[in-house]
């Protein structure tokens, strides 16, 4: 199975967030918890839905990522362009 992370938008400001291994919501995709194991992804998503019910985030879902790993860092790159734009921001200058 491909590696996946969990994302949502934060309720208070709509900012894109990614769920880490400790159940915190991070603004940087590289800090997300990723797994290729269905059960682990389901557990991460279940925790995200609990946060959704609590009014922390909106609309959590899974995103497929590729991993760029080197000795110094690990980077996640969503396979789908839409998610790459969500993770990295607009591809055009903001003025």
């Amino acid at each position: 199975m491909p590696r996946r992370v969990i994302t949502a938008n934060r309720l208070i400001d709509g900012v894109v967030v990614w769920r880490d291994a400790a159940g915190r919501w991070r603004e940087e995709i590289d800090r997300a918890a990723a797994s290729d194991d269905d059960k682990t992804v389901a557990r991460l998503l279940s925790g995200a839905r609990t946060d959704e019910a609590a009014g922390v985030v909106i609309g959590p879902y899974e995103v497929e990522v590729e991993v760029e790993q080197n000795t110094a860092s690990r980077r996640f790159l969503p396979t789908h362009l839409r998610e790459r734009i969500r993770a990295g921001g607009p591809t055009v200058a903001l003025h």
Partner: protein
Amino acid sequence: MYAYDTLDRTFVAQRTAQFREQVRRRLANELSEDEFKPLRLRNGLYLQLHAYMLRVAIPYGLVSADQLRALARIARRYDRGYGHFTTRQNIQFNWISLKDAPDILNDLAAVEMHAVQTSGNCIRNITTDQFAGVAADEIEDPRPWAEIIRQWSTNHPEFSFLPRKFKVAVTGSASDRSAMRVHDIGVRLVRGIDGAIGFEIWVGGGLGRTPMIAQLLRGFLPKEHLLGYLEAVLRVYNVEGRRDNLYKSRIKILVSTLGIERFRDLVEAEWTLTSGPGLRLETAGIARMQSHFRAPPYADMPGRSREFEAKRLEDSAFARWAKANLFPHKQPGYAAVTISLKPIGGVPGDLTAAQMDAVASLADAYSLGEIRVTHRQNLVLAHVPQDRLHDLWRALDALDLATPNLSRATDIIACPGMDYCGLATARSIPVAQRLSERLAALDEQYDLDQLSINISGCVNSCSHHHVGHIGILGLEKGGAESYQVTLGGSSAEDAAVGRIIGPGFGAEDVVDAVETILITYLGQREDSERFLDTVRRVGQDPFRRALYKQP
């Protein structure tokens, strides 16, 4: 321009307070997202890719200098220092926090603005000709009628839960600058056989997944019956329109399914039943509304300014801008100026907060403190003395707002696309930017005037790609962006839906494809024939052969 009365102020204040409480309850998790979403959408607040987006209503595109300054403050304080003007003559802010939304609506209310009915299945912002009230070819100023429709449709209890969104455009000229025939209802002021002025009513236009051009519903409607007749149309739609299928829920599908004759019969029957005196507009009320839009106190000047003519001769850059961006004014000695929001390689329709403030000051100094937003995502200063055009042009040039490209190849309409929009299937802005850069030189060399290129990032067609002379629709195909190209569309009085030229192009190839189309046009055009007329004359074959290397 229209000034709020007590009723308007009370309504907007109540709505703002109501939404503040709804936001509080949402943030306290007393409302779920499912419960809250319809409430925020009724106040123009969407959740997009990166943040909330607030769409602020600019009724018929008319905004005062003070209102534009308020929009600049909002952009600076609550957003990231810019806004995006839309094809409904509204403005969108892309980086809004939910917690700030009530304060923003408060700030808007302070300058008689709001975000009501900029979303949802209701009657949306009424649009009109950006040259309303100043166009020499106008039968009558459409703005009082747009305002009458705005007031009638605002919070209308019967039409707050229509089968789908509903868009109305009003125009006062035979030349349609309001894209009237791609609206659910198009209203056009016309002169009847006896010389009296009334309305043509068009119905069933729309773009999106199933593009259709509006059909004539009634050739002449006396003025006093405008609201009664519109109410009858909306009632028939509200009852007969489909609610079981999102893609078949617009009025265009109903009109197309029933046929215009049957639809007309239903409307006329409904109108006969309900057109009592309560819905009849009184002459005094119409006059009161028209008084808000009375011609401003123009100076008495000769028709041609010697100062303007002299500057045109001595300054070629000014002459080029004047040729492209000026529109004849009905008042001698004045001109209507279009400020292009399409700098070469820029983001179509975007304006920074600093530019908003500067344009507001220029409007105060040169154009009676008034600005208009066009459905082509540009701005207009409608009352500029010709003597002062050169000074205005220099000031605009310093702001990077003097691109001389109105209605030319680089005057591209683009939606936010996948860079911002949650519905988009492909990006629009980067394609627009690359096209603008590529076509600027071609335009300079070959005079690509009277050409509209419209780019939408999904089938919802916010950029009206179906009616662009060249339309580009961004889709996702096999995980990659793919751009479908249509030729021959028009949103003007010769309205038509463009035809797909063939298989789509990848993101890397679409700019080359458009260039090939234009080079083919240059080889085919006769004299100064515009692109649309060449396509209509020669058909699609020459373009298809060039694009797909067919013999």
